[in-house]
């Protein structure tokens, strides 16, 4: 029923995230101008100006670390000592996963498993528990894992605020805790790994659409679901950009990640406004459907953004779209394993560990289009050098 659906979508939406929404990086602020007339509505109370500025700055920062291995690189790293965690191997790593039921997390987890395989000599066991996108289950899971004699605990939280207590409890156990993807409202984990984040994503896309579109054009913003921190930050950044440029956002609609629904919405908006000059999306899931809607309506496809999923990239290449694909790279799933091993060796690691967040543009599009990979595969997986590629991901 609808409920099941929504929950699936949640995880689907959970495909990316950003800084903790409160606490550590300062409490929420009202954000920027109310955006009168731009039709973008009121700013999300999750918008945190400080984080927003930080992320935009990071977009132009040069990463440090081995070239060509973005998953080992870091942006302005601040190293932390980990000597107290030094331990002789082999190690047992435990991973509490927010969920698996969406392509992004599937690709990511396969990448993580492959990464583990490359260290088989040093990793004696890898325990994975899937919280199925349920906060309360993940809290129970973490508590459960604490009884399994793990040497290090990796957590990909389902929700920032609500998982904090459980993570703190884990920290108190004294084993190294590594958090990635979403954060938690506490500094107790040894490191928090994730790419630049949602503000960056939303901003890049909005900025591109604004620039390529005819001045004063009409923009349709398509979102997956309301109320998911991840997607809220992407949207709130886009909102800032649109408000600043005074873009006319004619609609902000929710697609539930359903292509059919998406096509219907786009269809109705084309009919209502005669033409739509730009499409902004908070996730790539239904980009293909949006493009189709324009084709079926016999209209030129306006500037649009997607994500690094191959179906969109192919479409983009074949139809020669004016498009951009900000990414929230799945290669970040490799980093926690690497970090864990470093920590257990007592090596220093960056905290926070900010990974670069490349954007796919017309110029580098061809590098990422790979016709042999499935349509929902994420090009930015950084998995080509891992054992079992490409089979494991097909």
């Amino acid at each position: 029923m609808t409920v099941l659906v929504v929950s699936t979508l949640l995880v689907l939406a959970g495909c990316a995230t950003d800084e903790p929404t409160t606490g550590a990086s300062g409490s929420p602020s009202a954000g920027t101008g109310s955006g009168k007339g731009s039709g973008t509505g009121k700013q999300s109370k999750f918008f945190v100006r400080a984080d927003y500025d930080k992320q935009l700055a990071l977009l132009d920062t040069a990463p440090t670390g081995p070239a060509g291995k973005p998953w080992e690189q870091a942006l302005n790293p601040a190293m932390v000592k980990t000597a107290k965690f030094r331990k002789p191997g082999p190690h047992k790593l435990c991973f509490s996963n927010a969920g698996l039921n969406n392509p992004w997390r599937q690709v990511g987890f396969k990448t993580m498993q492959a990464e583990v395989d490359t260290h088989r000599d040093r990793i004696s066991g890898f325990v994975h528990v899937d919280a199925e996108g349920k906060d309360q289950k993940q809290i129970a899971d973490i508590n459960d894992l604490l009884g399994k004699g793990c040497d290090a605990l990796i957590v990909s939280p389902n929700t920032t605020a609500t998982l904090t207590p459980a993570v703190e409890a884990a920290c108190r156990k004294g084993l190294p805790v590594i958090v990635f993807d979403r954060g938690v409202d506490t500094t107790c984990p040894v490191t928090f790994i994730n790419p630049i984040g949602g503000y960056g994503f939303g901003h890049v896309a909005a900025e591109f659409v604004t620039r390529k579109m005819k001045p004063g054009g009409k923009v349709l913003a398509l979102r997956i679901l309301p109320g998911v921190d991840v997607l809220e930050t992407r949207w709130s950044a886009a909102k800032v950009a649109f408000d600043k440029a005074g873009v006319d956002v004619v609609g902000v609609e929710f697609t539930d990640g359903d292509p059919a629904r998406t096509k219907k919405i786009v269809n109705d908006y084309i009919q209502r406004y005669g033409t739509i000059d730009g499409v902004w999306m908070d996730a790539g899931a239904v980009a293909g459907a949006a493009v189709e809607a324009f084709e079926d309506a016999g209209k030129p496809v306006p500037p649009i953004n997607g994500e690094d999923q191959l179906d969109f990239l192919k479409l983009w290449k074949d139809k020669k779209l004016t498009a951009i694909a900000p990414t929230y790279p799945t290669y970040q799933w490799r980093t926690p394993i690497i970090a864990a091993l470093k920590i257990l060796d007592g090596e220093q690691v960056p905290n926070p560990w900010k990974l670069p967040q490349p954007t796919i543009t017309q110029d580098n599009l061809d590098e990422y289009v790979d016709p042999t990979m499935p349509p929902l595969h994420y090009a930015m997986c950084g998995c080509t050098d891992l054992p079992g590629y490409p089979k494991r991901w097909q």
Partner: protein
Amino acid sequence: MSGALSPPARWTPPGVFVALALTLAIGWLVVTVDGGRLFSLPTTVSLLHVAAGLGLVAVGQTVVVVGGSLDLSVAYTVSLSTLVAAEAMAGDDGALLPAIGLTLAVSATIGLVNGLLVTLARINPFIATVGVGLLLKGYLDNGYDGPTGKTAPALVQGLGYQRVGPVPLAFLLLLAVAAAAWFVLARTRFGHHLIAVGGDPEVARLSGVRTSRVLVTAHVLCALCAGLAGVYLASRLGAGAPRVGTEGLYDLESIAAVVLGGTALAGGRGGVVGTVGGVLLLASIDAVFNQLEVDVFFKQVIRGVIIIAAVAVYARRAMRKAS
């Protein structure tokens, strides 16, 4: 308990407990062979916590189902309750009780609306509660970008994480609520009237039962239980979460637990004892599969099969009783 006089209890629920025992036994065996431990302290605690959340909702669901109705809006009621609680507390222990009061008041109101739609407006419960669910969804989607509010620390430490030996406070709360519900069904006029309404509303009416009033009360009680579950989850999560209810699939899972417990979906037969068993069964399956790290999708398939199989068994038993 099941030895007591009242049909809801006398009428044999324990089928589900046999299934539970088997699940745990086989589960324990497999997990041990697999090199894990099913009954380690943390695992047990986790299991009971999962059961507590679902259990509170399911007990409420039992009350409406016994009355021949059902409530598909509980998931949203739960979410809303976490928010009301956490926002009202705003991290202040002083606001604890008023906040809980407010939460229960809000959820009771939702139950009242459900009840009136089903009785006064004569809308089929399925449609009525789904409709109310949509209304709540709209409110939540529109009003909340994500987790808000802060649960009172006292509540977090208490209800959220405190336990007696391996048994979390929350689970004791569940047992208390279940016992209360059992008592209400077995020993109060309302309980007797509710079962009668579930069995045959016309008969109840002709016997002088105020059917509407009874059904409305049942819906209020159900919503109250959902509200309580919301308070518990708020204590667990430390904040209000606008999606925790739908994420947890509390509407469908609660109904699943109810029917696993042997309560007839048509109403008039069943009770909370079985429901608690059903909840524990679902939680145990969770735990076992967790230990074995089995793919969750596979687990979903298994669940589907188990639910159907269980009800099929009850149906067979009922037929035998009839002939």
